[in-house]
C-alpha cells in the first residue's frame, strides 16, 4: 500500500528502469537515472542538517532540475516549496520568511539572484546552504555554503529509509493573499495519493501515455502532470515556457513528442483555436484534453470539439486547497448553446462537495450557494497561519458532531437538475486570469505601498478572449504609467500587474466611503 507520493516513482522505476521518465527540450532522463541522482540528492540533504518535515525551497528554471528537486526533497522526508524564478524577489522573500526553508536549491540561471533573496530578511541568523544543480563553473563565487552537482554525485545512491507517513507534508504552494502576503497551502502525501489514485483510474492513464507538463511548478496542475506520470510509468514532457507565445510551436511540440494527454488552463487552448493552428489531421496522438483553472469559453471549446470529434474533452475545477481538482465534467456532446458555460461537474470520486446557502442549508436545484469540499484530498490548512486556516477550514456545518473539517471555497455555485454544478462567481475579490488565481486585494496592497499613490481601485474585466486587470489611480506626484507599472512589477509577478492603468484626479466613492468599483467598471466598459 502506498503511503508516500514518491513511492509511485519508486514503483515505476522497478518496473521500467530504462524507460524515459522526463523530457525537457533535448534532455531526457530515465527512471533509473532520475532515481539514482535523487537518492544522492536526498542523502546530501540529510547530511546537511536537514530534519524531518523541514521545508526545502527550489528556485530553478522549469526543467528536469525541477523534478530532481521534488523527488530529492521528498526522499529526505521533507516538504518542497517551489519559488518561481519569474516572481519579484520581494515576493519570494515573503515566502522564505514565512516557511524558513533549511536549504535552497538553485541552478545556473538563478544563482545570481540568491543574494537578493536572502538580503533584508526579517529572520536573524539565517544562512541556508545553497545547492546548485549544475556543475561548478570557474566564474562561480567562492561562497563556502554553495554546493554544486559534483558534490551531490559523491553521495551514496542508496535510498534513505523514510520516516514520513500520509499526514506529513509533501509540499507548500503559495497562493495570492488578499492582504498582500501570499498564503502557503499545505498538501500532505495522503492528499496527493488520494487525488492521483482517482485521476489515474478515472481516466485510465497507463505506461503508454505521454503527458504534457504545461503549468509552472508552483501551480498545482503540475501535481496532476507529475504524479499521474509516475504512478502509471508514463513519460512527462515539460513544455518550454517560450512556446506559450507561439501557438504553432505548441502544436508542433505535441506532434513531435506524440503526446497523448494535454492538461492546461483554457487560455492556451483559446489561443491555439483563435490563431487557426488547429486542423483535423493535426496532433493525431492526442487522446485527452483537460481544461482547468478557469472557465473554458464555450465558443472556443466547440471549435476544438468540432475539429476533433474523437478526442476526449474534460473540464475540471478545484482550488489548490483541495489538491488540484474537486469536480470534473466529461464533455460528452458538443454544447449547443454558445452563451452557456460548461458545468464544473460533479465531485471527483474521492471527495464530497456540497453547496450551502446563507442559512447553512444545502442548496436546492437552481439555488446559488457557497461550495464546500470534504474528503482526504483537503489540505490541513495554511502554513503558519492559524487565523486564516480557522476561517476557511471549518467544522462541517452539516455534521458538526463528527469533528470533521471541510474547506469553505468562497466559490458560488448553482446545482443543476442533473447533479452537475455550475460556477456562478466568487464571494470575494478573487479572480482567475490567464489561469492564475489572483486576489485583487494583493494588487491593491502592492499599489498602496508605493509612496506616490493617493487612491487605487483594481477591477477585473472578464471576457472570453481578452480579460484584463485594470487599475484606476489617483497620484500625489507626476509619474508615467510606464513607471507605475514598473514599480508594481517589483512587488508582484508580471501577470498581476494591471494591463491598463488610468489616472484620475480622484476616484468615485460609495456611500460607505469605499472606492466604488462598480462605477469604475461601468466607466471602463463605456470608455471601451
Amino acid at each position, binding site marked *: 500500500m502506498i503511503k508516500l507520493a514518491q513511492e509511485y516513482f519508486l514503483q515505476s522505476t522497478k518496473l521500467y528502469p530504462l524507460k524515459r521518465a522526463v523530457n525537457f527540450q533535448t534532455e531526457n532522463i530515465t527512471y533509473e537515472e532520475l532515481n539514482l541522482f535523487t537518492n544522492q540528492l536526498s542523502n546530501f540533504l540529510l547530511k546537511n542538517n536537514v530534519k524531518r518535515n523541514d521545508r526545502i525551497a527550489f528556485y530553478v528554471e522549469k526543467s528536469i532540475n525541477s523534478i530532481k528537486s521534488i523527488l530529492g526533497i521528498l526522499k529526505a522526508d521533507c516538504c518542497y516549496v517551489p519559488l518561481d524564478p519569474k516572481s519579484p524577489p520581494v515576493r519570494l522573500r515573503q515566502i522564505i520568511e514565512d516557511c524558513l526553508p533549511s536549504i535552497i536549491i538553485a541552478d545556473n540561471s538563478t544563482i545570481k539572484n540568491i543574494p537578493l533573496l536572502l538580503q533584508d530578511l526579517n529572520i536573524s541568523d539565517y544562512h541556508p546552504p545553497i545547492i546548485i544543480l549544475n556543475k561548478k563553473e570557474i566564474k562561480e563565487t567562492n561562497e563556502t555554503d554553495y554546493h554544486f552537482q559534483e558534490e551531490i554525485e559523491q553521495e551514496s545512491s542508496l535510498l534513505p529509509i523514510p520516516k514520513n507517513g500520509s499526514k506529513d507534508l509533501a509540499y507548500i504552494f503559495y497562493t495570492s493573499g488578499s492582504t498582500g502576503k501570499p498564503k502557503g497551502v499545505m498538501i500532505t502525501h495522503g492528499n496527493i495519493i488520494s487525488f492521483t489514485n482517482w485521476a489515474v483510474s478515472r481516466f485510465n492513464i497507463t505506461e503508454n501515455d505521454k503527458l504534457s507538463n504545461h503549468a509552472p511548478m508552483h501551480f498545482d496542475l503540475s501535481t496532476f502532470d507529475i504524479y499521474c506520470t509516475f504512478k502509471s510509468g508514463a513519460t512527462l514532457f515539460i513544455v518550454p515556457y517560450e512556446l506559450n507565445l507561439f*501557438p504553432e510551436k505548441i502544436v508542433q511540440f505535441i506532434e513531435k513528442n506524440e503526446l497523448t494527454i494535454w492538461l492546461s488552463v483554457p487560455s492556451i487552448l483559446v489561443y491555439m483555436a483563435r490563431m487557426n493552428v488547429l486542423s483535423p489531421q493535426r496532433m493525431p496522438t492526442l487522446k485527452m484534453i483537460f481544461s482547468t483553472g478557469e472557465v473554458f469559453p464555450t465558443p472556443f471549446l466547440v471549435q476544438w470539439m468540432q475539429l476533433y470529434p474523437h478526442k476526449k474533452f474534460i473540464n475540471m475545477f478545484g482550488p489548490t486547497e483541495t489538491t488540484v481538482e474537486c469536480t470534473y465534467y466529461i464533455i460528452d456532446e458538443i454544447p449547443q448553446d454558445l452563451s452557456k458555460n460548461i458545468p464544473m461537474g460533479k465531485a471527483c470520486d474521492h471527495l464530497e462537495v456540497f453547496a450551502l446557502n446563507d442559512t447553512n442549508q444545502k442548496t436546492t436545484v437552481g439555488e446559488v450557494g457557497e461550495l464546500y469540499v470534504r474528503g482526504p484530498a483537503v489540505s490541513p490548512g495554511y502554513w503558519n497561519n492559524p487565523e486564516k486556516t480557522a476561517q476557511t477550514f471549518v467544522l462541517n456545518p452539516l455534521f458538526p458532531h463528527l469533528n470533521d473539517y471541510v474547506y469553505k471555497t468562497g466559490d458560488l455555485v448553482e446545482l443543476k437538475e442533473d447533479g452537475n454544478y455550475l460556477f456562478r462567481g466568487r464571494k470575494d475579490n478573487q479572480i482567475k486570469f490567464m489561469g492564475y488565481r489572483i486576489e485583487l486585494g494583493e494588487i491593491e496592497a502592492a499599489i498602496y505601498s508605493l509612496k506616490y499613490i493617493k487612491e487605487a481601485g483594481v477591477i477585473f474585466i472578464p471576457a472570453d478572449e481578452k480579460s484584463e486587470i485594470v487599475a484606476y489611480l489617483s497620484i500625489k506626484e507626476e509619474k508615467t504609467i510606464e513607471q507605475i507599472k514598473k514599480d508594481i512589477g517589483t512587488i508582484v509577478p508580471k501577470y498581476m500587474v494591471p494591463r491598463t492603468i488610468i489616472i484620475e484626479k480622484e476616484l468615485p466613492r460609495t456611500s460607505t466611503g469605499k472606492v466604488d468599483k462598480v462605477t469604475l467598471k461601468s466607466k471602463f466598459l463605456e470608455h471601451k
Partner: protein
Amino acid sequence: MKSEKIERMTTEITKKDKEEIKVQIIEILQQLKQIQKLEQETDLISSGFLDSFDVISLVDSIEKTFQVTIDGADVILDNFDNIDAIVALIERLKS
C-alpha cells in the same frame, strides 16, 4: 515614362509605405504598453517586453489597422521579434 524612372518611383513609394507602416506599428505598441516612447525595436519577444497577452493584442490591432488576416502559422518569433520583421509580414500579407 522610362522604365528606370518607373522603377525608381515604385521603390520610393514602397519605401514610403514601409515608413508609414513602421510608424503605425510603433504607435500600436506604445498604446498597447501604455508607454510614451518605444525604446526598443528589436528583441521585442525574446527580451520579455511582449508576452503572450501582448502578442494576441498586437495581432488583433494589426489585423484591424491594416485589414489583413494573420495565420497562426505566421505567429512565430521570426515575424514578431523586431519592428522590421513585423513590417515585412504586413507587406507580404497586403500584396
